[in-house]
């Protein structure tokens, strides 16, 4: 009972901190960093749904993210107005996710990584070469932000609050999902797909709908991104971007709720803040990735808890037990 109270207390404090952020974090640069952390966290939620809860590692999700961004930018440039562009972008994104899922779910494990990588490359290639639509390397500019209820989102603080609201909604959705029977079924397909089939579950269909939810979160993040950045270019859909979001999930802790947020914070801070001091931040990112996969595969959130409880020597001993990444980490 006390543990629940402490957990709720911690949550309340975090919520208060985030809600009041623009008031105490006075430098605009850092407010923007906070916005990035939040919408990349939504992206990470989406990838985590597959990586952590379904046991499917996708290296092509930046493609879906980018499709939503490009769709929004393209339609805005075509004069469609914000509400229609956003809705249409979501529709296009979800349709693309359905195709993506139908092709990728032919295999699991390494096969899934490779198909998603290939599909991500195809989408990147289209963004780069289909110049008549995407403007190629020059990208597409987004000149205005929407005005929900007449409020302007032009300032970083206002945009931060929008992102925060969307982030809270997505967090609630993911939490509900994880605790639901469908969420439990999804984790079951990750751990024992054959047993699940023998129990009457439609494993492929469960994975497909998980992909769709993952795609929804990814597209929401993509739309927030394009309004934040006010520009979209092919670089956003590159393999490096897919790798970065996987890094966010792995480093924070797959199959946890807090993990994607921590991972997003880690990667965004290294890219935005640390990069101001260390020129070799890409190297650093790669090194952190390798270190976490080898030394703390269950991610920073569960790993820190474990270290705190058990002490350093036992870390290497328990690491030699059944491969953590193969089974997606500790219980959700």
């Amino acid at each position, binding site marked *: 009972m006390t543990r629940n109270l402490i957990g709720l207390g911690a949550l309340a404090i975090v919520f208060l901190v985030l809600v009041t952020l623009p008031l105490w974090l006075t430098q605009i640069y850092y407010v923007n960093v906070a916005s990035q952390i939040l919408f990349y966290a939504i992206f990470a939620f989406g990838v985590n749904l597959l990586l952590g809860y379904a046991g499917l590692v996708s290296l092509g999700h930046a493609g879906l993210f980018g499709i939503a961004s490009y769709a929004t930018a393209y339609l805005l440039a075509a004069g469609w107005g914000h509400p229609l562009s956003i809705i249409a972008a979501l529709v296009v994104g979800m349709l693309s996710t359905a195709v993506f899922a139908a*092709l990728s779910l032919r295999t699991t494990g390494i096969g899934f990584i490779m*198909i998603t990588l290939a599909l991500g490359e195809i989408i990147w290639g289209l963004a780069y070469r289909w110049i008549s639509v995407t403007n190629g390397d020059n990208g597409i500019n987004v000149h205005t932000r929407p005005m929900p209820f007449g409020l302007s989102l032009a300032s970083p603080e206002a945009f931060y609050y929008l992102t925060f609201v969307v982030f809270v909604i997505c967090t609630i959705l993911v939490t509900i999902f994880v605790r639901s029977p469908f969420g439990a079924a999804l984790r079951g397909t990750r751990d024992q797909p054959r047993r699940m089939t023998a129990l009457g579950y439609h494993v492929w269909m469960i994975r497909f709908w998980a992909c769709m939810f993952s795609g929804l979160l990814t597209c929401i993040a993509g739309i927030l991104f394009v309004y934040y950045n006010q520009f979209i270019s092919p670089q956003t859909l590159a393999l490096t971007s897919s790798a970065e979001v996987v890094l966010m999930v792995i480093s924070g802790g797959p199959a946890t709720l807090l993990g994607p947020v921590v991972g997003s914070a880690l990667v965004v801070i290294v890219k935005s803040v640390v990069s101001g001091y260390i020129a070799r931040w890409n190297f650093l990112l790669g090194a952190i990735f390798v270190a976490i996969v*080898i030394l703390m595969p269950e991610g920073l959130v569960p790993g820190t808890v474990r270290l705190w409880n058990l002490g350093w020597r036992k870390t290497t001993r328990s690491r030699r037990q059944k491969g953590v990444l193969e089974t997606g980490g500790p219980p959700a």
Partner: protein
Amino acid sequence: MTFWVLLAVNSITFGGLLFLLSAGFSLIFGLMRIPNLTHGSLFMLGAYVGATIIVSVLNTSIDFWLAAILAALTVAIFGALMERLLLRRLPGEPLAQVLVTLGISFMVADFCLMVWGGDPISVATPSSLAGFVRYGIAVFPLYRLAIIVIAAVVAIALWILLERTRLGAMIRAGVDDPDMARVVGIRVSQIFTIVFALGAALAGFAGIIGAPILSVYPGLDQDMLPLALVVVILGGTGSLLGSFVGSLIVGFLYNFGQALLPELAYFILFLPMVLVLVLRPQGLFGRQLP
């Protein structure tokens, strides 16, 4: 007409380069069951190292080949270290190993950027092969033909290694059934290191000998890795013949695609790969994907 012939020759040349890059990738995939996502970076590293060795000595002709071999050796050592120090810590965890190779590719790419900067480096064609060959009205750069010959020689050498030597037999056993291979006394973990180093050497070698055509620039790794992936998916993992055929197919698709339908070039390239993955996951020649 000449246009098509030249395009075809360029395709075969590119295919040859791809074969050098993908043969190692395919062997590593077949033996260790992982797509080595560092492979593009190894290609690029070999190109940079080779380019540096060439520039630092005056006489290019002999040194080009010496530089190529030294570059290949350097990358081989790097590959061996990578396998021994990092991948070996994750036995039986292919997903984790793939992610480690991904992380290392970030590190290598940034390292190259730090050491060699952001500007492309051009590498001169070795002077002994700088000429042209005439056939009727068609004119072929000698170097491109040389690459075709080199790729063929390496292909034969690899074939002899795999089919006629004891080491090759052990590698093939490891590819077919690693557990069984261990049971009959093959030191599979040593084979892993050897194959990884060999694959890295081939990639590095391909990088430097491809440099006169492709030059060396940041992002070369990101350009080459997906191509190796397509070759291996089309040709099958662990199959030398598959890499050979796959490389030629991709060489043609890439060059003809760029020439005829530049807007859809990537699509043309990857669509067969996706189709193969969806319809026949073991590729045209190889075994089931793990």
